């Protein structure tokens, strides 16, 4: 078999299985909903100020949605950046770029495999988080009908479907952040700088959104796209924010990816 992007992808996944940060990220994605569910079960209060916050004692299905809202601030960006920001820079750190770039794969194929692996990790982290949140939430508050943002009730199985769809919509800005992490990983050649840089980028977006006079930029900020899934929890479904996120997120992702690709293709591998 001739080696190609999928060869790189397979081995990148294999390498992720041997790295601590993978388990740090996935562990956080799984533990946070469990801790949240435990807190819900021992305390009577609820976060009133966020959507679905007041339903967390009525149905466990509100819990994954509350976590999506809280997680958008820095938890999911950090989990995403942990791998995306490291996946190119770690080759610089280990001095292994020269090792893999003198085989039979073009640089573009290596980069492509890394993009796929970083994306796969982010998808797994978000879906794992959702699955654990649904399970833990249902254990403490039951698998019961959910009140939507329009005030109507949907059955538990329908709510589960909506949560699944919400996670997928949530992946739009997450994957855009992954692409920015990949770009920073390629440019900085330093894992810590790229991880922190990606997180800073995410926080900057949120800051711009709340600055006075810059409210007009809000719909185009990557941070705002983390709310797009809420459209699914209205009746009838509001597709507008989702359609909006579907073109705004690629505006961040594709240039970042293209820039990272070009830098990776052209750079001198002089270290290591």
């Amino acid at each position, binding site marked *: *078999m*001739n*080696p190609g992007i999928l*060869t*790189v992808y*397979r*081995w990148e996944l*294999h*390498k992720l299985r*041997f*790295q601590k940060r993978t388990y740090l990220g996935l562990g956080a994605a799984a533990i946070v909903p469990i801790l949240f569910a435990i807190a819900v079960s021992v305390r009577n209060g609820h976060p009133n100020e966020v959507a679905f916050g007041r339903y967390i004692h009525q149905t466990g299905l509100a819990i994954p949605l509350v976590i999506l809202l809280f997680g958008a601030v820095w938890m999911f960006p950090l989990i995403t950046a942990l791998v995306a920001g490291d996946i190119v820079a770690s080759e610089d750190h*280990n*001095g*292994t770029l*020269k*090792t*893999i*770039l*003198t*085989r*039979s*794969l*073009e640089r573009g194929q290596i980069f492509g495999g890394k993009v796929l692996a970083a994306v796969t990790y982010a998808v797994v982290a978000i879906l794992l988080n959702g699955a654990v949140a649904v399970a833990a939430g249902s254990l403490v508050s039951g698998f019961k009908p959910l009140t939507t943002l329009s005030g109507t009730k949907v059955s538990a199985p329908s709510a589960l479907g909506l949560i699944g769809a919400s996670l997928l919509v949530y992946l739009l800005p997450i994957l855009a952040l992954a692409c920015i992490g990949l770009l920073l990983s390629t440019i900085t050649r330093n894992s810590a700088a790229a991880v922190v840089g990606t997180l800073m980028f995410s926080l900057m977006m949120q800051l711009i959104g709340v600055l006075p006079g810059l409210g007009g930029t809000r719909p185009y900020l990557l941070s705002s796209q983390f709310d797009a899934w809420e459209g699914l929890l209205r009746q009838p479904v509001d597709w507008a924010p989702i359609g909006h996120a579907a073109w705004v997120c690629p505006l961040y992702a594709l240039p970042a990816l293209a820039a990272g690709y070009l830098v990776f293709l*052209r750079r*001198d*591998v*002089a270290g*290591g």
Partner: protein
Amino acid sequence: MTAAAPLEIRGLTKVYGDIVAVDDVDLTVAEGNVYGYLGPNGAGKTTSLRMMLGLIRPTAGSVQLFGRDPQLGVRALEGVAGFVEEPRFYPYLSGRRNLELLAAFDGGGAAARIDEVLSVVELSDRAADKVRGYSHGMRQRLGIAAALVRGPRLLLLDEPTTGLDPAGMRDMRALIRRLAGGGMTVVLSSHLLGEVEELCDRVAIIRTGSVVYEGTIAELKRTATGAYRLRTTDDDRALEVCRAQPGIVDPRRSAGAIHFNADEAAVAALSAALVEAAAAPVELTPQAASLETLFFRLTEGQDGAAAPEPVEVA
């Protein structure tokens, strides 16, 4: 049509800001050569090798590997393998896993060679250990294994014995000799003259980025003038003979002997002349390995005007 040479370099130059790391290097390595790329540390050997492997872009000039330019894609590396500086691997994977990854990146029959190359470099019994725990020498050997997995016809090695203990150096050299004996073309950079003299049949000597000598070791030796010490049965007469003898440079008496500089051919002619003049040599010893003297002269000359003249060898 004749097959393209394993390695052909023309006008290769790499400039970093104000620093010319590699300056207009030309060389051709023929099939089956064991070619030494010799120079002191910092002379530009590694930068040259990185360009040969397509890891960095030349500022000017070209590299052809079997007639293909590594700048245009990894297809040029078909049949070519090697490493620059110390070989590096994923520390959290075992030696074997690292080779499996690289073999997968090579495609073809590379994966089937893993067991064989592990035994060639004598790492079979440590292959399951994580590379993190490998000694420098083991990593060097794994580097050779990683290169051999590609089944190369041209092997590019950057100072393969650096940092090894004497036994490790001996084993590494024996391994390179074995590979070369099997018909592989080897380009070997080194700052050790003895190593290149022992292993290589051709050499390029590089100094501050430029080639100052290119040719066979044998011819280099013939042109090398070294310092000699001479005692004879009649030193007065011998000194006269030395002064009259072509090729004997700066003969002088000191410390109870005659000292002079000459190349090997002139020394041979001198000893015949001494015998004829009834001043038979009782001692005629090179004071420094003549090749070493030449090497230092070539690579340690002063900057600018005092730079050594390139030695032309047909």
